């Protein structure tokens, strides 16, 4: 356990080694929030308006929730795994007495810890500047369910990243392309980071909700807002856990097959 704690500390310090990169990543997040905030603020300029089941307070809470949930779920160092595979650097880790998955999960947690601390600062600053109406969830059971949904989201994202990062086992040049398509385009569109899934037509929503992507951002925020309660809440969390298990098994299977064809190209 101690070695992973050391990895956590080193990874945390490494983030500060590239300060400009980190700050720019945070600045980009704030710009995205600006875009979404003012879009919804404009639509809900009439305080009494209710659209897609949201009032002004709930939709602006959704926007600010995206800032926090993104920092917790989508901040991850494991995006670099595909480069390890493509360049043959994976060999270095296979020779060490550590679990490669645990190594990257520890680094992810380190990145999340740093990002959430900055996100809370940004949240406070934007909150003071923009003064949005905010829905504070006070029900402790819902808050616990929200935390559970965040943990589920973190595991789902970790598995998705490792699955996409396995592409270079078979096609070393396609590592970044795979990430672009899945972790940027698909997740941006279907996770709820840009818009709540329930603004989509009723015929499309079940299709999107049948994928793991909404469990990353949309579902946790819906849980926080109290839009999923009772049996539906248990069913949602159960489905999230099922996605974690299914993706973990699939990811392990893909990596076992990948390791068999791994040639440590470039080493």
């Amino acid at each position, binding site marked *: 356990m101690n070695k992973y704690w050391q990895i956590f500390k080193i990874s945390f310090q490494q983030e500060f080694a590239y300060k400009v990169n980190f700050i*720019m990543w945070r600045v980009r997040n704030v710009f995205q929030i*600006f875009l979404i905030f*003012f879009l919804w603020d404009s639509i809900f300029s009439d305080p009494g308006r209710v659209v897609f089941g949201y009032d002004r307070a709930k939709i602006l809470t959704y926007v600010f929730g995206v800032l926090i949930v993104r920092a917790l779920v989508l901040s991850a160092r494991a995006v670099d795994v595909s480069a390890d595979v493509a360049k043959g650097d994976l060999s270095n880790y296979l020779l060490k007495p550590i679990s490669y998955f645990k190594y990257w999960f520890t680094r992810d947690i380190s990145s999340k810890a740093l990002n959430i601390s900055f996100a809370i600062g940004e949240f406070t600053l934007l909150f003071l500047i923009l003064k949005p109406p905010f829905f504070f969830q006070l029900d402790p059971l819902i808050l616990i369910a929200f935390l559970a949904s965040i943990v589920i989201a973190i595991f789902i994202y970790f598995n998705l990243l490792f699955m996409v990062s396995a592409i270079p086992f078979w096609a070393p040049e396609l590592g970044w392309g795979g990430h672009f398509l899945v972790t940027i*385009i698909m997740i941006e*569109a279907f996770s709820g980071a840009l*818009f709540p899934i329930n603004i989509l037509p009723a015929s499309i929503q079940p299709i999107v909700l049948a994928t793991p992507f909404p469990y990353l951002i949309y579902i946790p925020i819906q849980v926080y807002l109290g839009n999923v309660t009772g049996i539906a809440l248990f069913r949602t969390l159960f489905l999230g856990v099922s996605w974690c298990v299914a993706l973990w098994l699939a990811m392990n299977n893909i990596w076992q097959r990948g390791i068999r064809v791994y040639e440590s190209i470039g080493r």
Partner: protein
Amino acid sequence: MVISQKLALSIFLVGKVLRFTFFFFFLFFLLAGTKTLAGYEVNQALFFFLTFNVIDVITQFIFREVYRFRPMIVSGEFDYVLAKPLNPLFRVLMGGADVIDLITIPPLFFAVWFIGAKLSPDPLQIFYYLLLLINGLLIATAFHIIVLSMGIITLEIDHTIIIYRDMTSLGRFPIDIYKQPLQGFLTYLIPVGLMITLPAKALMGLVSPVGVASSFAFGLVAVFVAVRFWNFALKKYSSASS
């Protein structure tokens, strides 16, 4: 071109098309529910988004070399550019077009024509639109020249260009949705409004001839200032790594 490179190119092309399509439909479904955005109806709001994409895609297509400038400066390879009988600004600004963006331009133009026609513009409005579109590209050119110049002085390109792109992405929607002081900032300091919102408004008949002329004057001045800044930056180039 080897198969994996073709596949990589296809993935990026598919990714870009999907990103555009997803956002377009998000906007469409959103407006289907709300009916208006900052007083603009569905087709008008979609036209703002398409105009943003026209400026964005064309600038990325033409100025892709800007994204490759930093290694050139850091390694000292820029010396070779300066030594050749070709305008160095032209070389580092437009020396490498992006084929992926080229492929996406024709369908984008079709979409602009299709949605634009639904707004029933008269010939003068179309002329103003095209003129202000060119002006938007002029302002974008000025920004890319300034980014290159700052790259020479500070050795920093990647983040500056990303900030520029994030700023312009706020033009996906009419800047009327933003509140002051952000709206003023986007109109005058980082003139996303002049680059993207104004051309689209011109097609809708919401811009006067004086507005068109003053906007065009701003674009010309921006390019002039940017070129002056480039000349200033060139004098600061130290060729340190070579």
